[in-house]
C-alpha cells in the first residue's frame, strides 16, 4: 500500500494539515483562560454565571455553536461566541474538559 496514492486522496489528506498550519492562533488553554474573568478561576464560578469546570467537551462545543448561531438566547455569550472559529471553539472545549 502507499506506492500509488491517487492525487485526490492525497489532497484531501493534506487539507487539514494546511488549514491548521495557516491558523496558528492561540492555544485552547490560552483562549480558555480568558473565560475565567467571568466564569471564575479554573472555570469555577461562585454565582449565577455557569461554572465551566466539569462540563463535557461536546456539551461546550454544542452550547458555543448554539450561541454563535443565535439558536440559544443569551445576554453576552452570543456576542462572545461569534469571536471564535469552530476550530477555536473545539480547542477551548478540549481544554475546559480537562478542568476538574
Amino acid at each position, binding site marked *: 500500500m502507499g506506492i500509488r496514492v491517487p492525487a485526490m486522496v492525497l489532497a484531501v489528506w493534506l487539507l487539514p494539515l494546511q488549514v491548521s498550519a495557516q491558523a*496558528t*492562533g*492561540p*492555544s485552547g488553554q*490560552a*483562549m480558555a*483562560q*480568558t473565560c*475565567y*474573568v*467571568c*466564569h*471564575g*478561576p479554573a472555570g469555577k*464560578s*461562585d*454565582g*449565577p*454565571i455557569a461554572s465551566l469546570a466539569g462540563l463535557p467537551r461536546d456539551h461546550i462545543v454544542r452550547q458555543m455553536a448554539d450561541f454563535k448561531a443565535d439558536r440559544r*438566547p*443569551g*445576554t*453576552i455569550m452570543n*456576542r*462572545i*461566541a*461569534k*469571536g*471564535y472559529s469552530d476550530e477555536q471553539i473545539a480547542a477551548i472545549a478540549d481544554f475546559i474538559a480537562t478542568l476538574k
Partner: protein
Amino acid sequence: MTTTRRSLLKTAGAAAGLGVIGMPALAQGAAGKIVIVGAGFGGATTARYLKRANPALDVTVVERDDRYVTCPFSNYVIAGFRKLDDLTHSFDGLRKAGIKVVKGEATAIDTATRSVSLGDGTKHAYDRLVVSPGVDLSFTGVPGYSEAAAEKMPHAWKAGPQTLLLRRQLEAMPDGGTFILCAPANPFRCPPGPYERVSVVAWYLKTSKPKSKILVLDAKDVFSKQGLFQAAWESEFPGMVTWIAGKDGGKVESVDPASMTVKSGFGSETGAVINVIPPQRAGAIAHAAGLVGDNGWCPVDPMTFASTRAANVYVVGDAAVAGAMPKSGSSANTQGKVVAAAIVASLAGRTPGAPALFNICYSLVTPEYGISTTDVYQVSDKGITTTPNAGGVSVRTPTTLNERKLEAEYTVNWYKSITADVWA
C-alpha cells in the same frame, strides 16, 4: 500528594539558581527571577499565572500599598450600595501561591544591569521585569485643578479616600443641588466608568434627593456604551441628566474650587458637588524608566506585551498601548496571562504561542440594571484589533429574557470571578 508536590517544588524553586536538573518543575520551563511592579489587575494576574505555569520561577511583586482597592465597583461605594472594604483585596493569596510581595515604591529601573530600585534604597535584580503601574492623574491637564483642589473637587478615579470623599459630599448635598462630572478625552482608565458613575449617582439622587440634577461636561463627542447609557438615563431618571459633548462646549476650560465653578464652552456652571476626572498617563515608574512614547503611554509588542523601548521588560494593563483594547481590569487580566506565557517561553528559549486577548466591561445603571460591552481581539501586523462581526454592546431592546436584570447579576458575579482569579 499536594504537600509532597508542593514541598518538592519549593525545593526546586530555592535551588533553581544552582541549576538542579531532573526536577519535575524544571521540565516545564527554565527557571528565572521575575520582578513585577504593581499588584493590581495586570501585575497580580501575571504573577499568579507565571507561578502556575512554572512553580520553579522566583516571582517578586513590588507594591506600595498593603492592600489593593479596585476601581471597579468603586462607583457603587459612591452611590452607597457597596462598602470600600468589599473592594479591598489583601495579598495573602499571592503569598500563598509562593509569590514574594515586597512593600515599596519602584523609583528607578536599570535595564542594562537588570535591576529595580525601590524608594528605601533596596535593589531587586531580575531576568524579566513586568511593569504594571496603572495610571497617574495629570492634575495640570485641567487649569485650576491640582492635588489640593481634588480635596474639594474629588476625582475619585483612584479608589480609596477619594471615593469616600465623593460619597460624603453627595450625602451632604442638599436636595435640588447640581452634581457636575467632568469627563476626560480618550484614552483614560475605564472608558464606561464616568457614565456608570453618572448612572448610579442618578439612582442615588432619584431615591434620596429627587430634585437634584446632573450635568456631564465631556471633552469627547462619543463615549462607551453611549446609546445604552443615554436610553437608560431617559427611562430610569427622566430629566435628571444633561450630557454636553465636546463639540457643544463640554470640554472644560478651567475649574475654580473656591467658587465651585467649572468654565467650559457651555458657560460657567456652579455645582454643589463637582467630580473632575483629569487626563491620565502611564504610572510614574514607566516614565522614569523611559518606557513611554510621546503620548505618555508605553508602546509594546502586541504579541507578547514586551516593551519596544527596553529589552527583558514587559508592560501590562492601563499603562500599555494595547490597540483596540480599553484600559480595564478585564483587559489587564487577559494581558497578564499573555505576558506570563510569553515570559515562560522566553526563559525557555521558545517562541511564545499566539496571544488570546479578550475584554468584558460590565456597568450598572442601577443595582438591578446592568449593561455590557465585550470584544475578542486579534493580533496581526495591524496590531490588536477587534474580531469583526463579534463582540459589542448589550441588546438595545430587552426581551423576555430580562437582559438588564441578568446582566446586573452577572456584573456582581464578574467581580467575584475576576478578583478571585487575581488575588484570592
